[in-house]
């Protein structure tokens, strides 16, 4: 009975670890799809406009975005080598990473919000190896966890 109890505890621990690893894997799948979609979109856009966008108008990955209300006063101190910045805000702000922005741009085809259409699911599956297809289908159906 003691061994049975120990095995049951070990099983719950393993199930919890598997759930965490599956969540991390799904996040990586969304990243892979978003990155590939972004590269595809920019290639098509540059091909149709026959020129890369002006360098000052694009933001290269990796980046983060700090957003705050338009009335916020921002005070910024910069070290001479530009390797250290200190921002002071007189209001709240939010910080978002590039993956969050790509999701907001629809680059992960609505998979993260359960709004992936059948056509987009076909596109999503084409961007990842076959061995990961079942994960994408589960994410799209919202059955993953």
């Amino acid at each position: 009975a003691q061994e049975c109890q120990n095995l049951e505890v070990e099983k719950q621990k393993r199930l919890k670890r598997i759930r965490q690893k599956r969540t991390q894997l799904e996040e990586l799948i969304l990243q892979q799809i978003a990155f590939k979609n972004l590269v595809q979109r920019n290639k098509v856009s540059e091909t149709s406009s026959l020129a890369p966008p002006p360098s000052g108008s694009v933001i290269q990955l990796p980046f983060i975005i700090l957003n705050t209300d338009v009335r916020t006063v921002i005070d910024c101190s910069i070290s001479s080598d530009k390797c250290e910045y200190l921002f002071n805000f007189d209001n709240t702000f939010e910080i978002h990473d590039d993956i969050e922005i790509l999701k907001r741009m629809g680059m992960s085809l609505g998979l993260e919000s359960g709004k992936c259409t059948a056509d987009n699911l076909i596109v999503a599956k084409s961007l990842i190896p076959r061995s990961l297809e079942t994960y994408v289908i589960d994410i799209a159906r919202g059955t993953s966890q």
Partner: protein
Amino acid sequence: SCLTPNSAYTYKINGSPSKELTDINRMIRQGGV
């Protein structure tokens, strides 16, 4: 998020999970409560 000694939240670009930013945003929204 990992708290440094002076109770600051830290995040590494391309190194920390997005969840740490979620924690930071929540802390800021709550005014650091």
